[in-house]
């Protein structure tokens, strides 16, 4: 018995090699190096596989991504540069009790944020009660005054959400940001799972992983539940900016999985406040639009006049209640990075509950005292522009140069409302296959929340990985990759 355990220990030693552990939470190993109980079976499987077998499976998975055309487009290079979404072969495991807390926490958070949007765009009680400073809302570039006094179907503003969670060194999950406009990445969650089932079939089976494959069906049901009154057989479409958008693969994937038409702005016309699409059979009425186009580009008559990605007259048809657009316009207000700091207060105000999932500590830079503190400690903090996403417009203090810090200090002084600062987080790391051995890399977690009749979260999400050693940026546009996420029964 004991000799068997010794052999096992040796296998583990070769597997991990000089795998470093430090202050950051390691998803697989305890502080003393022991493998966490729920990672045990994975570690044993890996230890038993010959090295070249892992490589072989990795190559076969990569090839499968390439021939399926599962790629994304990188901006700021030649237009239309396609790349495979980098993919790590080892799954990230989350226990049932951890997931239970995440699920309850997100349900609470999304419910509150939806109530907040409804309130701000109608009576704005939360502003009169001085819970949130008025100027913070009205100065937000995602606030849409056109939405004032408008009733949206079932009062659902945010039907599709992808919040980003991190795990701190205490092991606690916190929310880094709520993506309430057009969150992406869910197709990678689904395709990763398909590839993983092929790569580790026996392991997958032995773990008892909760399924996620029904996501498109739940999304379709969510959209259908939001159809305008009196349209029992709604025509639901997915509106994409087109083939040059970085998430175009995802748009086509979801449309196909749901069996709905993928439309571009040029396919749509409005007439008498009704939206139609151009078909080979003439014009066909559209009832629900799952839009993957930002507010700004949705309707040149209301928003940016220089955009041709949307459809002229769409907003008026929406106002008239003849078409549902999901997510609603103006939802970006609630994921403004400065308003983020107020989310715990928003939860307490509307639900009278304490937040189940905490925020990351955030400094607001239009507060004189906090700004001075931040400017003095730029080398330790992360500074983000409030309206940006995808890891663009960000300063990571410890990894920045003096010139970059000076540049950001100038920008902050010029427009403090436009920036927030957060401590540099030592968020958790998970083992990844780098070359032919394991190395820890920083990971986050983006579960996908759907909100129609009720809040619905498929048990899983996209674990994004900062594949570069020591990097803290997980965005796919900045060299990040992904892992399949297994929620255990």
């Amino acid at each position, binding site marked *: 018995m004991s000799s068997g355990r010794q052999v096992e220990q040796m296998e583990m030693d070769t597997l991990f090699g000089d795998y470093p552990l430090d202050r950051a939470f390691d998803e697989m190993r305890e502080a003393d190096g022991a493998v966490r109980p729920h990672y045990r079976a994975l570690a044993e499987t890996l230890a038993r596989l010959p090295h070249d077998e892992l490589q072989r499976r990795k190559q076969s998975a990569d090839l499968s991504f390439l021939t399926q055309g599962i790629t994304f487009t990188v901006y700021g290079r030649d237009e239309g540069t396609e790349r495979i979404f980098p993919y790590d072969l080892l799954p990230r495991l989350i226990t049932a009790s951890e997931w239970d807390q995440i699920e309850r926490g997100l349900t609470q958070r999304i419910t509150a944020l939806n109530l907040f949007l409804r309130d701000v765009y109608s009576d704005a009680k939360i502003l009169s009660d001085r819970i949130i400073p008025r100027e913070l809302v009205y100065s937000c570039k995602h606030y849409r005054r056109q939405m004032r006094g408008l009733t949206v179907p079932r009062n659902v503003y945010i039907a599709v959400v992808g919040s980003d969670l991190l795990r701190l060194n205490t092991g606690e999950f916190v929310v880094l940001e709520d993506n309430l406009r057009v969150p992406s990445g869910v197709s990678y969650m689904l395709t990763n799972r398909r590839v993983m089932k092929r790569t580790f079939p026996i392991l997958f089976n032995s773990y008892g992983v909760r399924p996620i494959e029904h996501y498109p069906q739940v999304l379709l049901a969510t959209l259908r539940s939001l159809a305008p009154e009196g349209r029992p057989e709604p025509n639901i479409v997915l509106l994409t900016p087109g083939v040059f958008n970085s998430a175009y693969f995802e748009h*086509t994937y979801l449309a196909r999985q749901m069996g709905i038409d993928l439309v571009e702005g040029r396919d749509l016309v409005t007439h008498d406040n009704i939206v139609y699409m*151009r078909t080979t059979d003439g014009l066909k009425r559209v009832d629900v639009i799952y839009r993957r186009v930002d507010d700004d580009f949705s309707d040149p008559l209301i928003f940016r006049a220089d955009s041709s990605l949307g459809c002229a007259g769409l907003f008026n048809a929406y106002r008239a209640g003849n078409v549902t657009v999901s997510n609603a316009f103006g939802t970006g207000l609630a994921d403004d990075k400065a308003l983020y700091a107020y989310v715990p207060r928003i939860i307490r105000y509307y639900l009278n509950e304490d937040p189940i999932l905490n925020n990351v500590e955030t400094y607001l830079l239009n507060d004189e005292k906090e700004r001075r503190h931040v400017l003095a400690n730029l080398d330790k903090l992360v500074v983000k522009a409030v309206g940006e996403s995808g890891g663009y417009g960000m300063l990571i203090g410890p990894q920045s140069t003096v010139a970059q810090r000076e540049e950001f200090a100038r920008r902050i002084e010029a427009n403090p409302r436009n920036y927030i600062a957060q401590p540099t987080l030592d968020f958790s790391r998970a083992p990844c296959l780098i070359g032919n051995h394991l190395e820890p890399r920083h990971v986050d977690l983006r579960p996908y929340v759907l909100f129609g009749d009720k809040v619905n979260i498929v048990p899983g999400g996209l674990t994004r990985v900062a594949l570069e050693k020591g990097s803290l940026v997980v965005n796919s546009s900045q060299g990040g990759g992904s892992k399949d996420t297994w929620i255990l029964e």
Partner: protein
Amino acid sequence: MLSRVADSLYWMSRYLERAENTVRQLDVTLSLMLDISGTSAEVRWQRLMASLGRPPSMEWDGDLESMARKLIFDGTNRASVTYCVNGARENARQVREEISSEQWARLNRLFHQIHSPNAQAQFSNSINDALASVVDGIHLFKGVSDTTMIHGQGWQFIRLGRYLERAYATATLLEVYQPALFHPAEREHSGYQYLELVGLLRCCTSFEAYCQVYTADLAPDRILEFLLLNRDFPHAVRYTADGIRHAIESIQRTGGRRPPEELTSVVGRLHAMLGFTTIGEILAGDTGAFLHSIREQCMKIHELIYGHYVDYSIHSALAV
């Protein structure tokens, strides 16, 4: 189905058909050049270009291999095979949700194959193998299209694109070859004349099919009859005209709108013209003009389809 999607499927299919046609004609031209006949490389190249519709920036520079390489790999030239494969893939990419995963994977593989550095190396080693592997890729795509896609409107637009492109290309090819078929150069040895005729048939992958119908007794009027009027051979113009008519009828059946009179009558006329004319009548009249009118009718059909299914005015659609 969305008009834009129909348009993309149609063009995806046309581009692939065009790529296949170009590869086949290049292959035949190159293999004819192996035999030392009186016809110079330049003359053959000019004929190839004429039957491909005289694309710009393809002037003969004296180096056959570099010309052939350009015709395959130069993605900036609209006549090149790479350009056509790019076009097909770009169109497919915009309708990813309409085509099957197998179709997409197949087309994607063809795309990566022609763009890989290996393709250039293979071309230097064996031009024939390189050309054959491109044609294989296209054939596989067509097979997968027929077996994995719903045979609804989208599939019919794919067929429409394929047959229209093929009818046009075959008519162009015959128009270019036709004068020489009946008036061979006097000094031409009969062996070379035979190879020329085989070459013409092979341009339409029809040598074996022809032999089954007429035996290997190659005669210009029979070849013309076979490539124009055969009812059962998929590369014969009459067969493709049947295909065009059938596709349009199917599209009309699955949709609610009747196609305009003009479209029905142009398609019907082309179909009747090829169905009820004998080769004797064609040869007795102006053969060139006959072939030319096939091409013009194809262009007219394209315009009418476009105006009715894709680029119609909103007012006309609302009026219905």
